[in-house]
C-alpha cells in the first residue's frame, strides 16, 4: 500500500509538471501584453512599462521565464500576481472557503440525488418509471448549467421570492447554486448508478441470491449495490476534482466569489502566476481525489487488492 501511494504521488508530481508546462506555453498565445494589464487608467509613460516588464521578467526569453517559475515553485512560492500585485497564495487562499462550500454542497446534492435517481431507474428498469427517469437523466446531462440556473432563479427568487438570487452569506445563498450544479452532476452519477446496478442484476451471484429465496430488493441491497456502485466512486471523485476550478459559470451567474472567477480575471489579464497557481491547485485536488477514490475501492470491495 505504501509503495502504491508513493508511486501515485510521483504520478501527481508528473501531472503538475505537465499541466504547468502546457499552461505556461499556452498562456503565451493569449493576446496582449501582461505588463499592460494593470495600466488601464494609468497615465504612465513608456519607461514605466519597460521597467514593469523588467520587474516581471517579461524581457527574458520564455524558456528562462519558465525555468525561473519552476525554480520558484519548487521552493513552495506561487509568486505575486502581475495584475494586482498580491501574493498568489493569499489571493487563492481567500477563495478556497467559498469554492469549497459550493463544491461540497453541490456534491452532496449530486450524490443524494444521483443515488436515489439511479437506483430508482435501475430497479424499475422496464416500467414507465424507469424509462421516464432515464429521459430525465439525459436531460439533466444535456441542459447547460446556465439554463437550469436561470430557470431556478426565475422560479425561486423572482416568482416565489424564497431564496436570494446572488451573493453569499449563509446557507440560503448556497441553496440555488448547489442545486444547479448538483442537478447537473447528479445526472451523471445517476447514469453510472443505473448502469452499474443493471449490470449487476444479471450477474450469477445475484441469481444465486435470488435462488436462495431472497427478495429482489433484499438481494440488491445486500449483494448488488456494493459491486454496482464501484464506478460511481470514480465519477464522484472526478466530478469533485473538476469542480474545484470549474464552477466559474455558476459563480458568475450567482455573483459568488470563488476560484473560477479569479481564474477568468487572470486569463483575461494574462496574469500568468495566478493562472498557474489555480492550475497547481486544480491538478493537486484532482489527483488527490483520484487517489482517494482508488483507496476507497479497496475499502468498498475487498476483492480488489492494491499491488505496487
Amino acid at each position, binding site marked *: 500500500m505504501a509503495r502504491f501511494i508513493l508511486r501515485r504521488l510521483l504520478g501527481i508530481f508528473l501531472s503538475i509538471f505537465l499541466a504547468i508546462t502546457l499552461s505556461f506555453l499556452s498562456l503565451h498565445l493569449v*493576446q*496582449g*501584453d501582461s505588463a*499592460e*494589464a*494593470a*495600466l*488601464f*487608467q*494609468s*497615465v*504612465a*509613460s*513608456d519607461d*514605466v*512599462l519597460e*521597467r*514593469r516588464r523588467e*520587474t516581471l521578467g517579461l524581457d527574458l526569453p520564455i524558456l528562462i521565464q519558465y525555468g525561473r517559475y519552476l525554480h520558484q515553485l519548487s521552493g513552495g512560492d506561487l509568486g*505575486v500576481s502581475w*495584475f*494586482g*500585485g*498580491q501574493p498568489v497564495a*493569499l489571493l487563492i487562499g*481567500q*477563495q478556497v*472557503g*467559498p469554492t*469549497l*462550500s459550493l463544491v*461540497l*454542497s453541490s*456534491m452532496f446534492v449530486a*450524490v*443524494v440525488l444521483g*443515488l436515489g435517481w439511479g437506483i430508482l431507474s435501475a430497479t424499475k428498469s422496464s416500467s414507465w418509471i424507469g424509462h421516464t427517469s432515464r429521459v430525465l437523466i439525459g436531460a439533466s446531462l444535456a441542459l447547460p448549467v446556465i439554463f437550469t440556473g436561470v430557470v431556478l432563479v426565475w422560479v425561486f427568487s423572482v416568482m416565489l421570492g424564497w431564496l*436570494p*438570487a*446572488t*451573493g*453569499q*452569506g*449563509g*446557507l440560503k*445563498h*448556497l441553496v440555488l447554486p448547489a442545486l444547479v450544479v448538483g442537478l447537473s452532476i447528479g445526472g451523471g452519477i445517476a447514469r453510472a448508478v443505473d448502469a452499474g446496478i443493471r449490470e449487476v442484476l444479471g450477474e450469477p451471484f445475484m441469481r444465486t441470491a435470488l435462488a436462495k429465496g431472497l427478495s429482489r430488493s433484499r438481494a440488491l*441491497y*445486500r449483494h448488488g*449495490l*456494493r459491486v454496482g*456502485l464501484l464506478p460511481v466512486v470514480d465519477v464522484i471523485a472526478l466530478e469533485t476534482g473538476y469542480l474545484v476550478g470549474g464552477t466559474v459559470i455558476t459563480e458568475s451567474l450567482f*455573483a459568488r*466569489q470563488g476560484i473560477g*472567477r479569479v481564474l477568468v*480575471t487572470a486569463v483575461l*489579464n*494574462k496574469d500568468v502566476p495566478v493562472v498557474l497557481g489555480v492550475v497547481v491547485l486544480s491538478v493537486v485536488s484532482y489527483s488527490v481525489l483520484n487517489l482517494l477514490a482508488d483507496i476507497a475501492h479497496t*475499502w*468498498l470491495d475487498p476483492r480488489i487488492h492494491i499491488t505496487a
Partner: protein
Amino acid sequence: MARNQCLSRLTILLVVICLIISVVGCKSLTQKTEPAEIVYGLTLIPSGIDPHIHASSELGIPLRSVYDTLVYQDLETREFVPGLAESWDVSPDGLTYTFKLRQDVTFHDGTAFNAEAVRVNLERILDPAANSLKAAQLLGPVQEVRVDSEYSMTIVLSKPFVPLLDGLSQPYIGMASPAALSEYDVEIYQFHQVGTGPYRFVEYIVNDRLVLERNVDYNWGPSVVVNPGVPKVDRIVFRFFTDPASRALALQSGDAQIMGELLPTDARYLSDEEAVQLVSVGIPGQPLQFLFNTAQMPTSSLEVRQALLLATDRQAIVQSVFQGYSPVAYGPLSSTTLYYTPSVEGYYAYNPVQADALFNSTGWIDSDDDGWRDDLGAPLEIVLVVPPWGLAPEVAQLLESQWESVLKVQVQIKQVASFPMLSDEANKGEYNAISLNFAGLDPTVLNSFFLSDGMRNWSRYTDPELDDWLLAAQAEMDPGLRAGLYRLIQERIMEQALVLPVREYVNLNGVQPEVHGLHFDIQGWYPYLVDLELSP
C-alpha cells in the same frame, strides 16, 4: 465485510460532508448585518488597490475616505482648500511648494501624522522600484521632498508643473501611516491599509468585498464635506457587480444600497419607479471617444476623418444608448474639465450631405455600383476596435449603421475582451478607430494621448506645434495663458479630426431612498463617504 457495510460507509461519508458544509455555512451566517451598514456596489475588479502604486479609478471610491490628502479641491469654486496641509505657498517660479501641516492628526494605528510621514509617502511613490502607475505621474517632476520641521515641509520641482496641487488632492496621493508601510511588504500592504481618513480599512477579499468601518477619532475633515467629524454610518461594505445587468437587480432587491454605473436603460426604468434615487455625476476628463488612426488608410486622409465625424448623429446615439443621460461630447475634453473650450461645439454638426460630398472629394467612390465605396476594386472598409466596457460596443453598432447608410463604407467591428488585448490591437495599428478615454479634472490628461511620443498616441499623429503647446500648458502658471493654450490644443485636435467624441462620461448612481448625503469630489468618481446618512 458485514452486512451492507458498503452502504453504511457511504452514509458515513455523506454525514461527514454534511457536517463540513454546515460548519462552513454557519461561519458565514455569523457575519450578521449591523444596523448602520451600507452596501456600496462597485463595477469592475480593480487591478491592485494600493493607491500609491495602482491606477484603477475604482480604488479611489473606497479609499478617498480611508486616506486624507494634503489639499482638497472645492467643487463649486474650483479652489484648493486645506486638508492635512493647513496652508501652503508656491514660489513665483513655480518650483517650490512649502506646506504647513495640521498638528492634531493621527493615523488609524495611533501614530502621529507629521512632515516626516509626508516625506515617507512621497518617496515611496517616487521610488522607481515601486513602479507607480499613476501617483508618480500626478506628482510630476519632483526633485526633492524636504522636511523643514515637525509640521512643515517643502516639495522642490525640477521644472514648473502646475497640476501638482490637483495631484496632491487625489486619493492616489493619500497619506498612509509610515509605520504600516514599513510593517507590511508592498505585496500585502494593500490588504492592511492605514490612513487618517474618516473610515478605517478593515478587510479586502479580492473579487468579493472591501470593508470599511468608521474612524471614531475623526475630527479633521476638510471644508468640502458637510460633516468634518465622525461618520454617521458605522460600516460600509463594497461589493463588485461586474455584470451591468445585475446592478439594478441588486439595488431593487436590497442587496445594495448604493450602486455605481447603472445601465442607462435601467436608470430610466428605476427612476420611473421612484423607488430609487438617481445621482448622476459628470466625470471630467475625456469623453467616450474613438481615436482615428492617422497612419492607416483611409483615415490617414483628413477629409475621411472629417466625413466620418459629420456622418455621425451623436444626438441619436446619446438618446438611444445613453437614454439622454449624458451630454453630447464635442471635443477631446468633457465640459466639466478644467479649461474646456466651448468653441469645439461648433465643429462637425451632423450633416450627411456634406459628409458624403467630402468623402467623394477623396476619390473613394462607388465605381462598380454595388452600393459600397471601393478601394482597388474591393469595398472600402473602416475597422473599429472596441473594448467591452462603457457601452462602447453598442455605440460602435450605431456608428456602423450610420456610416454604412450615410457614407456607403463597410464597417468592421473588432471587439476585444480586455485592456491588454485592446492595447495589443493599438500596438499592431491595423485599425481606423479605437476607443479609449481616461478621467481627470486637469487637462494634462490629454498628454499621453496627443504628445507625439505619448504612450497612448493611438491616433499616431505627430505635430511639433501641438507638442509644444501641451508641454507649455503643463508648466504655465498663469491661468489665463493656460486656458488660451488649452483652447488652441482642443481646437487643433478637432480641426485635425483626431477624435470622434461621442458622449461626456456620466456615472449613474442608484441610491436607496433611506440613504442620504451621497456626493462626490470634483474628480467625479470619488464619494465623500463621511457625509452618508441612513434614515431609520
